[in-house]
């Protein structure tokens, strides 16, 4: 079963991406995590997102397109990226969530995907 691991990062965490002193450690921790997911054969997909300041939200009301700058949900921690993992059960997904670098500073949300029908 596929689970989406939503990575919520603190501002401090996101800032580390481009901080000369902290960036190597930041990227190393993510690279280690992705490597571990791949090595266990559960990695399905994953991507990092640009900071929430680059988000644009679109609504369509009465055939009019309403566009505003910024993310849909204003939260202290922001969605910094996600992984999709294929694991047998929610407990296993939660174990992987706890190993995610953002868990120590931000939060990691686990959501089951809708199962495909064969």
């Amino acid at each position: 079963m596929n689970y989406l691991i939503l990575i919520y990062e603190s501002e401090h965490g996101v800032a580390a991406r481009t901080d000369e002193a902290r960036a190597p450690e930041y990227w190393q921790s993510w690279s280690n995590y992705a490597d571990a997911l791949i090595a266990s054969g559960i990695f399905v997909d994953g991507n990092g997102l640009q900071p929430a300041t680059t988000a644009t939200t679109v609504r369509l009301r009465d055939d009019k397109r309403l566009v505003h700058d910024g993310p849909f949900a204003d939260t202290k921690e922001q969605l910094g990226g996600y992984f999709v993992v294929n694991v047998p059960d929610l407990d296993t997904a939660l174990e992987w969530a706890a190993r995610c670098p953002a868990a120590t500073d931000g939060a990691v949300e686990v959501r089951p995907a809708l199962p495909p029908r064969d």
Partner: protein
Amino acid sequence: MKRHHFSLLAAAALAVMTATANGDQFALLIYETPDELAARTDDTRGAAYWKAFADYGAALQSAGIIRGGAALQPNTGAKTVTVRDDESVTTDGPHAQSSTQLGGYFVIEVPTLDEALQWAAKAPSSLTGAVEVRPFYPVPGMP
């Protein structure tokens, strides 16, 4: 109705295999109202709900810009994990509480943000919920 979802994912997988780089990748985050999410399993509204998303997925596919996507179970099934001082704490529910919830996402590859916004406006959830467009961050070492 799950068949629509499956064909959408199959289309996405096919698109990934045949992808050619012709722009930047964006995530279209699909935010849906409780009413829309209820339509998924509603006998009378379910067919129209899934058809709208299947049509949207098919349009992304014929445009050759779909790179991935998934639909999510309602956020009542969400769990949130935080680790503080080496202690892992799991709470029920999503990290961000809102009446309109993340119902799924599409990954598309298009030349400009403007084009991504045009596609966002065509997503079924833009009518009652919202679609958030986020550019990808090129992550070193990701497959």
